[in-house]
């Protein structure tokens, strides 16, 4: 046996390890992203959601994690491309007849197509909200809440001064004032467009099928298949990442679309 072996990441298994770890990291992000965004369903003119958006964009550790996240998305996509190129080269002449669903599931064979739909969605999603929030024309809003009674008054952007650029939270005479960008209104506005709503719903369906295979596949790739826990891992992959999370995300554009009708 040769005692000189190739470096980990030049091997097929090392590249698959990268796919697995970045994929699982992205899965963990989905959970956090969903929990935060559930605040969109609160009927408070976006008070909770806008405060949350402010926190997520200004808290330093979150920023570090967000750059890790962007890197993971890019690495996951780039390695998918590298691995797929190798896979295509491994069978230069295809079959005349193929077994299709007789020996494997459709989604397990088409992770690349599902991933591409998700990538297109991500680009749109970042443009719709991330770019608009950071560099775009997201309006401002001011909330004045009486701390004692909880009564809240809002002043929307057209009533605020034109030079307004502050994002502040302060308390004065028992009234808490929050001035922030109104991402909630941006969300409500964006989801009036039926094509964007359709893209979001289709992308969530693609995400569901991607994760039903991908979540358990990631554990197989890192070699985790302990008989006692693998059943749990597989059900989490199907029910949490394949059903609950995509449906909850898809409900958001649908909620705003039908609310605005």
């Amino acid at each position, binding site marked *: 046996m040769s005692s000189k072996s190739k470096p980990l990441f030049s091997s097929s298994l090392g*590249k698959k390890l990268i796919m697995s770890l970045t994929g699982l990291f992205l899965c963990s992000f989905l959970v956090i992203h969903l929990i935060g965004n559930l605040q969109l369903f609160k009927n408070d003119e976006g008070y909770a959601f806008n405060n949350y958006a402010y926190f997520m964009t200004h808290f330093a550790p979150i920023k570090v994690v967000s750059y890790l996240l962007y890197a993971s998305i890019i690495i996951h996509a780039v390695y998918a491309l590298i691995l797929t190129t190798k*896979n295509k080269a491994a069978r230069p*002449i295809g079959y005349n007849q193929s077994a299709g669903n*007789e020996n494997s599931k459709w989604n397990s*064979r088409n992770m690349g197509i599902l991933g591409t739909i998700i990538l297109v969605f991500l680009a749109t999603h970042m443009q719709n909200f991330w770019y608009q929030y950071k560099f775009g024309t997201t309006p401002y809003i001011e909330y004045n809440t009486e701390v004692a009674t909880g009564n809240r008054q809002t002043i929307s952007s057209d009533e605020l001064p034109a030079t307004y650029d502050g994002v502040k939270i302060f308390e004065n005479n028992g009234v808490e004032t929050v001035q922030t960008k109104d991402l909630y209104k941006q969300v409500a506005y964006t989801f009036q467009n039926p094509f964007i709503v359709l893209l979001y719903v289709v992308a969530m369906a693609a995400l569901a099928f991607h994760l039903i295979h991908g979540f358990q*596949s990631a554990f*197989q790739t890192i070699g985790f298949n302990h008989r006692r826990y693998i059943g749990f891992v597989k059900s989490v992959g199907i029910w949490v990442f394949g059903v609950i999370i995509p449906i909850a995300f898809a409900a958001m554009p649908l909620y705003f679309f039908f609310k605005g009708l």
Partner: protein
Amino acid sequence: MNLTLKVWRQKNDKSTGQFVTIQANNIADDMSFLEMLDIVNDDLTRKGEDPIYFDHDCREGICGMCSLVINGRPHGPNQGTTTCQLHMRSFHDGQTIVIEPWRAAAFPVLKDLAVDRTAFDRIQQAGGYVNVNTGGVPDANAIPIPKRIADEAFESATCIGCGACVAACKNASAMLFVSAKVSQFALLPQGQTERYERAQAMVDQMDAEGFGNCTNTGACEAECPVGIKLTNIARLNREYLTAKIFRQEDVHA
């Protein structure tokens, strides 16, 4: 019964092949698929044509020599059988059967339906063995092995190396084969000395042969004629990553 065969015909490894339609007449239900091809070849030989070239040896499902992708399924439509164990009763009169060789860059077609599977031999030679210093015959049961471990290793060792896993995989990945060969030694005491070197050497050779990457579709397990399980692939991943991350053998080299 009478059948229409669409067979891949290719003169040699240099030429490009194509499908040729051949009639198979008066085929009995109880013939094996290979016997059916024998009958067809008799006809072709009598007509002075080149018989269909295909791999076969033991014809009882243990040698791993027969291959053939039949209507898109390696070893045909039945589960847990090799092509030689497939009988014509699995087909019906007048059916068209498409017969193709294993398709993989690492398994070049030699002639018609026979492919060169020496890539598997080279993977085996890279680490699929145990170095033993010869000497006296050891006592039976001198090394205690729990029954369930022995059974698991035996299950992995039943791999006949036919290559159906590669043929079935959409990426032409050899992971099921390599994982079975690594597993049978990783589980047993005799394999421990070279355990991590073996996993690395065999994976390196697998990559060098040009097989694709595993995407865990499970097609290999579904088509394996001897029932090698995907748990072997998880074990190979574990062996290899453990070797690389925690116990790389060549750190002192």
